[in-house]
């Protein structure tokens, strides 16, 4: 386990990771300060039918939507929903996936096999399809989207943690601690968990990007939170019928998703390089 300071200095040296960090910081600031940064904060609910589908201008930086609401302001409030979905869904996946992975990795035998089979089952259908099925069954709403995403993402954590735990077991120090008579639970929490924190953090960062993309897809298909929620995927779906004229309407939320996901992906890559030499396969010989 490396110290936070060490990680940050290393990250700061990695230009693309730094860029990712900046993007995420920008997203957080946007979400927190949305009421201040928005030019028309009331437009989350308010309609101005007479001003619908106006192009970008000084009054409306990113134009207006089909209801005459300010696209820019709604975009900022959409960031809150995006972060909410990402953080809670990834958090919930962690809470389920990590214990499952730990147990499956630590114990050998039927329990371990069964747990990993169950997570395999969840990985055997396309994640989006599973999320769509769950979201449709539960009905379109914000909590249900989060639930659907958590239910589909936890196996990734289980897998990572399982693999890491197994790998660690082979290492001498765990074996020796066990030989000294430490209880299994103590062993797991005190020794294994800190050692596998790095891959979990990396996975969580990538998972944020993935979850946000999937959430947007659900919103796009009409399975996200209902209108007038300024969710980005839903906004893109709304905007389609006004193309090609109202290009700003479709473009802005898509760019927002793009930058957000890119932020998490870049950060994830950077973290992987710094924290986890064993996982560096994809960028192993990069020497910048």
């Amino acid at each position: 386990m490396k110290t936070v300071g060490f990680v940050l200095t290393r990250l700061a040296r990695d230009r693309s990771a730094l860029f990712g960090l900046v993007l995420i910081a920008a997203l957080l600031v946007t979400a927190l300060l949305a009421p201040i940064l928005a030019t028309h904060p009331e437009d989350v609910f308010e309609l101005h039918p007479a001003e619908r589908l106006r192009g970008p201008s000084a009054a409306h930086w990113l134009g207006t939507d089909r209801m005459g609401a300010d696209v820019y302001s709604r975009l900022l409030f959409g960031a809150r929903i995006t972060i909410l979905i990402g953080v809670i869904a990834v958090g919930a996946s962690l809470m389920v996936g990590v214990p499952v992975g730990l147990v499956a990795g630590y114990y050998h035998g039927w329990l371990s096999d069964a747990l990993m089979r169950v997570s395999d089952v969840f990985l055997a259908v396309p994640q989006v399809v599973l999320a769509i099925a769950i979201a449709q069954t539960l009905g379109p709403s914000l909590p249900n989207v989060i639930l659907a995403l958590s239910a589909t993402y936890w196996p990734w954590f289980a897998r990572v943690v399982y693999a890491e735990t197994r790998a660690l077991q082979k290492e001498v120090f765990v074996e020796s601690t066990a030989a000294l008579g430490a209880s299994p639970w103590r062993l797991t929490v005190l020794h294994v968990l800190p050692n596998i924190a790095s891959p979990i953090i990396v996975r969580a960062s990538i998972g944020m990007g993935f979850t946000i993309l999937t959430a947007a897809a659900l919103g796009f298909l009409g399975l996200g939170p209902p209108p007038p929620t300024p969710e980005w995927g839903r906004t893109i779906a709304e905007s389609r019928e006004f193309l090609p004229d109202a290009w700003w309407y479709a473009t802005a939320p898509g760019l927002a998703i793009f930058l957000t996901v890119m932020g998490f992906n870049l950060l994830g890559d950077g973290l992987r390089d710094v924290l986890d030499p064993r996982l560096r396969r994809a960028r192993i010989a990069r020497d910048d």
Partner: protein
Amino acid sequence: MTDRRTWLIVLLTLVVLATMPSIPAAAQTRFVFANESPYDTMDPHAAFDVGRVAVRLNLYDGLYRWLDNPPKLEPWLAESHTVSPDGLTYTFKLRRGAKFHDGAEITAEDVRYSAERILALKKGAAALLATMLAPGATRALDRYTVQFTLLKPSAIFLAVVPEVHVVNAALLKKNEKDNDWGAAWLTSNDAGSGSYMLTRYDPAVGFIAKRFAGHFMPWGPKYIDEIEFRLVKEDNTRVLGMIKGDYQGTGGYLPNDQVKRLREAPNVKIIEQESMRIMMFQVNNQRSPLTDVHVRRAISYAFDYDGFNKDILGGSVERNPVPIPNNLWGVPRDVKGYAYDLDKAKAELGKAAAKVDRPLTVGYLQGFSQTEQAATVMANGLRKIGIDTKLTSELWPAMVERMKKPETSPDLVVYWISTYYADPNNWIGEMFHSGQWGTFKASSFYKNPKVDELLDVALRSTDRKIREKAYQDAARIVVDDAAGVWIYNTKYFGPWAKNLEGIRFSPIGNGQEMRWVYYAK
């Protein structure tokens, strides 16, 4: 140049010529229509909607037919009919010599079989027909006379007669499987007599039909030889296809912005017609707090009618404050209905005995963005008078399912009531008579004995004056009770290829009956 090579070329040419499809001598005229919904069945008795009307109007004939706008009932396979004095027995005289596509003559027996088939299959127009006609109550008196004996006198029976599309009984019996009335076979085949004959069908694409020269109605000097109706889902694809000339016609209820684009295209013309298609919110009258008339009135005052009709829909529709289309008879002309007025809405809320202490669910149809926008406008108005809302959406069939019971129906649902037949009963009658509960049109679950009585009177009588008065009176009460929120009546803006002539629009067929249409050279 060697001999062998010359021979090879000759041989190749011959092969190519031999395998080439034969080209018809005269240039055939073709027409392609881009439809917004799929042609999932070719059975004329399985569907009763505008989305699949082209199948019924072009491949099949009924005893009577709705033509033009305002729609008039014209004799079609029947030459005339008589009604018994008690209004129970309708006797139709058939045209002689009218033929099905296989050459067999159309007889009274075919009409009888068709009526029984609709009632037995219980799809499409069956629900409506079954309220008037029992199975076994249709008789073929002789080869050219058919008689219907109704359960009770009905003013709208004749209006529904055009939906009794006549199918070739002998042909269907030949293709029956497990007494299914040939349903499986007819899904993808043609047993009609209509102006066009089915030549190709694919449920995922649509159908192609060629002109039936032997149709009983003489053809004009000019006509279209082959018609194709095809599913084209996106508005944008339909509009681009019209502009490029891939399609010669498409549905007339496009968003205003798209109509604007089409108007600028040199090869497209927009045919404007008054139509009959009311957009409305059904208000669940049976669920508290909507049981309180003041709450319902408050809701009626809270919808921004002008903002929606004029700004969002760009004035392509007309405000329709009552549950009968403005351009039909039976409308009480003195009733102004509700306007957007938040002060009045708040005042009504103040008068209400019931408290609005929960968010109201507002339903709209998935895939119809206009209903989503209407729901959003409604939610915004309600928010301003302090009522919370929750928007909920379903695909149409699922929404129909929810609307069968007051317990499952949303508090408000927005959609359209189109013209199934041109009579006020199609709107106010089926929407607000308590005997209609359970059908999608009646999902306001309104119950008022006085209104029931007026609607019964209107339905039983054949005297237009009595009927008109009854509908006007019923409409006054329903509007005063704010039993629903009526928004607009649609105008039809039909995009057609500029060189098409002879298009005959009626709100029932939306101009999709192709036998009248031809290309001006």
